[in-house]
């Protein structure tokens, strides 16, 4: 038990908690900046080019911050959690590619009458990622 006490017992939990909180904050900031960049030009500043460009740049900066935070989060996970995440990401990327191209093809060959939306693909990828994470946790339970 002495050996356990000698070690910084909560190091993994603490680091994980900090990384998760950081990722949450960056994701919220990016989502908010995207919403501002998407809707504010119409409702707040009447498509002023300078302000719109500033909003886009701010959104990109927050996006990069979120990506770096996500990388730090993933690197902070232990090896099994990392494997679950990477498996889920691989699945999500594959499904996104196959479903995305097929979805686009449907419109090209007139099987659907509406324009394919990128948002639909993002939703599919998010759901696949979530499903992959749940399946990964169940696999190692």
């Amino acid at each position, binding site marked *: *038990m002495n050996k*356990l006490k000698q070690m910084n017992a909560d190091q*993994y939990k603490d680091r994980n908690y900090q990384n998760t909180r950081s990722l949450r904050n960056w994701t919220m900031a990016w989502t908010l900046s995207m919403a501002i960049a998407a809707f504010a030009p119409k409702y707040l500043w009447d498509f002023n080019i300078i302000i719109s460009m500033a909003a886009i740049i701010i959104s990109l900066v927050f996006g990069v911050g979120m990506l770096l935070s996500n990388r730090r989060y993933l690197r902070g996970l*232990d090896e099994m959690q990392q*494997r679950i995440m990477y498996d889920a990401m691989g699945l999500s990327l594959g499904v996104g590619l196959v479903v995305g191209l097929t979805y686009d093809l449907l419109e090209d060959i007139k099987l659907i009458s509406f324009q394919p939306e990128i948002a639909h693909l993002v939703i599919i990828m998010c759901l696949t990622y979530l499903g992959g994470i749940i399946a990964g*946790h169940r696999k*190692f*339970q």
Partner: protein
Amino acid sequence: MKNRLKVLRAERDWTQAQLASALEVSRQTINAIEKGKFDPSLPLAFKAARLFDMAIEDIFQDEH
């Protein structure tokens, strides 16, 4: 790969959470290793060996 992690932990009266903290992994990972559902990497296996003051092969054995 078989391992004696559960037995060694029980002999020392450690919980999965305590062992997880000492090895800097999650409790779920310790549980998966003990059940043989996840094979640890060499660095993690060495870390466990150092913690238990044992050789790696005394904790982890190849099933083949």
